């Protein structure tokens, strides 16, 4: 059990510094169950980092209105984009001869988010002991984390689907476009459902108030 725990931490950290080997292992060598467990843990930790970040980051780098702080929404902001990305990417790559299964896409995406946790989490506490001049380091680290994550996402996608780099970039761009379409259709769907519900409700009211 202890060995497994050590592995649970070591394996993802090893992956982010050796992405090409790491993602190969993720696809071909590791058990999918372990990958999924780690992926959900990463999503949870990322949501936690974001929540703690809005609440506890230092005043010098963090101005937030407590009225609009909503932990639930912070979770949604993490989970929904990841799901959108995975669904869009899977839908596209199945048509474009990608070799990745949905679970592989999901795990590779989640593993790519590790830098956002590993770098940003300590900065929540560090940002409380920096001044405005030193906040440049904070912003630099944040950008670094984002850049690293995007790189990992790229490598992960390339390895999982066994694409060439240029094809990967093409699919990533198309995936973002597809995400936009999905968001649009989702909104359309919800507003239509709302209209139908209100229509039915109005008919009900008419019937009830008739006499």
């Amino acid at each position: 059990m202890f060995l497994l725990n050590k592995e649970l931490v070591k394996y993802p950290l090893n992956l982010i510094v050796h992405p090409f080997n790491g993602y190969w292992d993720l696809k071909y060598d590791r058990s999918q169950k372990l990958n999924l467990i780690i992926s959900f843990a990463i999503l949870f930790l990322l949501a936690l980092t974001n929540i703690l970040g809005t609440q506890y980051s230092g005043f010098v780098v963090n101005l937030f209105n407590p009225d609009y702080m909503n932990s639930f929404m912070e979770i949604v902001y993490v989970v929904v984009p990841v799901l959108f990305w995975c669904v869009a990417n899977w839908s596209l790559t199945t048509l474009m001869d990608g070799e990745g299964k949905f679970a592989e896409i999901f795990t590779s995406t989640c593993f790519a988010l590790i830098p956002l946790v590993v770098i940003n989490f300590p900065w929540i506490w560090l940002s409380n002991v920096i001044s405005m001049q030193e906040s440049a380091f904070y912003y630099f680290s944040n950008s670094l984390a984002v850049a690293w994550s995007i790189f990992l996402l790229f490598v992960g996608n390339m390895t999982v689907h066994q694409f060439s780099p240029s094809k990967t970039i093409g699919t990533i761009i198309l995936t973002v476009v597809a995400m936009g379409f999905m968001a649009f259709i989702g909104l359309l769907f919800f507003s239509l459902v709302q209209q139908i519900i209100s229509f039915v409700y109005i008919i009900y009211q008419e019937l009830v108030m008739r006499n």
Partner: protein
Amino acid sequence: MFRRLQNMKAHLLVSLCCLIGVSAGGTLVHAEDGASSYNYSFWGDTVASPAAYQATDLLSGPDLGIGPLKEPSDIHVTPDHQIYVLDSGNNRIVVLDEELRPVATIASFERDGKADTFLNPQGLFVTEDKQVLVADTGNKRVVHLDRNFKLVKIVEAPESELLKENFVFQPVRVIMDKAQRIYVMATGVFDGFMEFNADGAFTSFIGANRVFIDPVEYFWKRLSTKAQRSQMVMFTPTEFTNLDMDDEGFIYATNGDSFGNNIKKLNAQGNDILRRTGYFNPQGDIRFSIDLGPSRLIDIDVADSEMYSVLDSKRGRIFTYSGDGHFMYVFGGLGNQLGEFKTPAAIERVGDDFLVLDKALGEITVFRTTEYGRTLNEAVRSYYRGEEEKAFQLFNQTINRNANLEFAYAGIGKALLRQGDYAEAMKHFKRSMDQKNYSKAFLLYRKQVLREHFATIMTLIVILAAGALAVRKYRKTMGRKRGVSIE
């Protein structure tokens, strides 16, 4: 058992009394405030604020013993609190003293041995040594009288290559600086204020407003032909709506812009040098309904310590800002009650009191400070003068009355920073959402803490390092021993 019950009853009674007291106090405060006084928080929300000013008197012409005022359009107060009212409809100027008793009425002045009169004058300015300037709009001229109301000069329509041939000189507002230069705001002039030298000769324009180009309009203009374009609306800068001058000779002006800066402080070159370091740019209301739109500022009055007040004609509100651009307080409104107006036209400060002139009703409303308003005015003044200790006390008093006044916390924080209480200063800067000063206080605080605990921190580091070394060595020797034993 019975005694305990009695004891409990007593407790209940006491707590009930407390509750009643609390609720009664709450309703009382609410009734006093009304809805007319508010402030804006850092996040742009409207927050409650106690009234800084209250209307005390409503003065009409007959009350003052000067006959009814007919469409008065401007008012001016001298440093020794003499009040000059420009009674436009009756073509006269009425002078009142501090107790609002009539001192003089000027209906005519002598020009070349003949009596001359005003015709629908719109603007009035009185210098520190009580020279009077009148924008005599109907006669298309500016009249300059000395302190005994004898004519000094008349500024007629200027002739200059800067002006169009069909230019009609219609001065509506006028001011004069200490060097006797006259600045005139005239209708139909888009190039800024007209500047006249001490002899009354036109020199130049100053401080033109920027042109605002509507992108949609611009698009259609690009598509249309020259003939069509000539029929369309031209992009012209907005006109100013009013102006005033502070002690140092800077012109404060308001304009009718819905976008951009509608309050300006112009230096001699005509550049806008107003400090906008508050949470929002000074502009009147920042939250407004779309149908009524943003504030339309039509008068500005500069007080001491760089405080200035502007009058919004749309809602009849008077906003006051500190020199740093912090929104201090608001009062007034449109309506029929005391302290509300129908067509407010001009505001003027008499010391700390306000006079608001209502054009249609011909009445003057007098506003006097409340305890809160007095404390806040004094606090801002002391802060401006750099008397931090006094400002600290006064700001503390203001936040006791109004915890929503966020910029006051920065004032307290600065005094605490000077005193060396960095932790408290940080707390106050955080409350006023002032990151810059918070960072300053924090740097000093961090230095102080590190210096205080330097010995402890260093000891800890040394011990940790030594411990780590020892553990490593121990492991090494253990590993070697085991390796040896295995072999």
